[in-house]
């Protein structure tokens, strides 16, 4: 029986769904729970093909509600458990993820965004930003990574397990159908080859010893009788979230030092935004780009001085203002005008962004 799925570093040319399956294996994930939905399916397919070779588990549940709660259960049992879903499946998982928020459970969910609302398309969008960041009946105490390349999809899938178990907040890798289905070069690696140590996992139920005498009782609750009781628990969680947020926050910038036009995009769209900035620079336009890598917590602090200095902000996304609202909330009080190039459910090319930017600069 093979034990190490990846040793050192290996170059490969594969789809994003394969990348996620390899990353979960490399991260030492114990079990995946899932229910099929396009464009996520191949994560499950590759996982089920490879997992038995490395003594990892898989359970196909009857729907996404069940897959979400099974992931919660796996985590309670101390397993590095994850699931993957998209679109309507992501909607169904929100109840379980809200429970994970309430109980501070380190669940990991990989989302491959498809067109919405409802069944819509199986292809692509960035319309699951709100849902993934704030989908529960709570405060959105979650960590959400938005990778932009296969290299990042691999890295952030590994990181998601570590952030979840280190900080005890449900963690999401927010990919999309394009990243799932496209093939591009990637370097996969064993975490230790890059100096990454996997956070240990601990069971929260079935602990040894007599509760109350030999150890503290495990007090796992998602129900409270009194407002004050809930308030106290929530404020502890909120304060914990806010105190780790600066460590968790990640972002990327390009050519921002003298940028008069700042283009803001996340995920796969940021690749087009960066390419557009290169084109605009060649034409003598002082353009730069800012990309939130974490959408929750949102890196507003590093964005604010850049936005303040710019003359124009252009938010580009394959949704109708979901990122733009985050940006505007984060930049409250800064007078720089914000324009959106908003294409719900549509892919965005560098040429479109450059054209939009040029017409913005003319006005």
């Amino acid at each position: 029986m093979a034990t190490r799925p990846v040793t050192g570093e290996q170059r490969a040319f594969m789809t994003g769904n394969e990348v996620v399956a390899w990353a979960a294996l490399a991260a030492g994930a114990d079990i995946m729970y899932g229910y099929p939905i396009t464009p996520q399916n191949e994560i499950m397919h590759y996982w089920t093909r490879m997992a038995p070779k490395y003594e990892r588990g898989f359970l196909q549940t009857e729907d996404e509600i069940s897959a979400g709660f099974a992931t919660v259960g796996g985590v309670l049992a101390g397993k590095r458990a994850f699931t993957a879903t998209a679109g309507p499946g992501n909607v169904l998982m929100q109840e379980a993820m809200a429970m994970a928020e309430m109980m501070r459970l380190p669940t990991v969910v990989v989302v491959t965004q498809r067109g919405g609302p409802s069944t819509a398309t199986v292809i692509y969008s960035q319309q699951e930003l709100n849902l993934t960041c704030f989908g529960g009946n709570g405060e959105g105490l979650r960590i959400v990574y938005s990778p932009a390349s296969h290299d990042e999809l691999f890295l952030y899938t590994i990181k998601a397990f570590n952030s979840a178990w280190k900080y005890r907040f449900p963690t999401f890798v927010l990919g999309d159908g394009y990243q799932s289905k496209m093939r591009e070069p990637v370097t996969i690696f064993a975490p230790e080859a890059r100096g990454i140590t996997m956070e240990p996992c601990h069971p929260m139920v079935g602990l040894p010893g007599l509760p109350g005498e030999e150890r503290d009782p495990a007090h796992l609750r998602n129900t409270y009788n009194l407002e004050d009781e809930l308030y106290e628990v929530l404020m502890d969680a909120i304060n914990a979230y806010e105190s780790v947020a600066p460590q968790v926050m990640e972002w990327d910038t390009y050519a921002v030092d003298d940028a008069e036009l700042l283009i803001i995009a996340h995920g796969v769209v940021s690749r087009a935004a960066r390419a557009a900035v290169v084109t605009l620079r060649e034409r003598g336009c002082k353009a730069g780009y800012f990309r939130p890598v974490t959408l929750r917590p949102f890196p507003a602090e590093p964005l604010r001085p850049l936005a303040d200095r710019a003359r124009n902000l252009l938010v580009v996304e394959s949704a109708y203002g979901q990122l733009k609202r985050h940006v505007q909330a984060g930049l409250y009080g800064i007078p720089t005008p914000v324009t959106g190039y908003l294409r719900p459910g549509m892919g965005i090319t560098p040429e479109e962004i450059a054209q939009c930017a040029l017409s913005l600069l003319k006005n």
Partner: protein
Amino acid sequence: MDFNLKIALAGEGGQGVQAVAEIITEAAYRAGFQALYIPNFGVEQRGGVSVAFVQISSEPVSAPKFTTGDIVVALSPRAVERVRQYVGDKTLLVYEAGLEDDVRRVYGEEQRRLAVPALAIAQEEMHPRVFNVIILGVLVGITGFVKEEAVQQALERQLGHKFARDPALRELNYRALERGYDIGRGKREAVYTNLFAV
């Protein structure tokens, strides 16, 4: 020299468009280029227009899709319509020769073009199933940046299990590749060969 070659391919589901895209992209990656391929598909398993976007580049590829292709391939009447948005003034339109009337109607006379009698060749000289391999050969011939042997190896990775069962299939596929290659090479343009002269 920096370059980024963009190819869009479209055909009916089942015509093998995605396989062509996958093989050429993989061959390019193994030849040391940056490469990105993304399929675009509907909810149906069969039928419907299937589109593939391929980019081969000296630098990491930016967005997975593009506005205008350098080469656009159309293999069915609906595909001729569907790819219109990716065809610009400089685009070379490659199409199944039987679609001449559709191409004329949609693109007029001026569009740079290459008609490939792939259907006739496949049916009369080979086997209908190698239709897409002829198209693959044409693309390899036009661009000239991947060696035919590299494409044969890519074919082997994709279809090796079928070749093992029926060795005559290998010979058939190689012949289709060769035939397409010769058609494509005739149309090879300085613009592509210069791009890839290393």
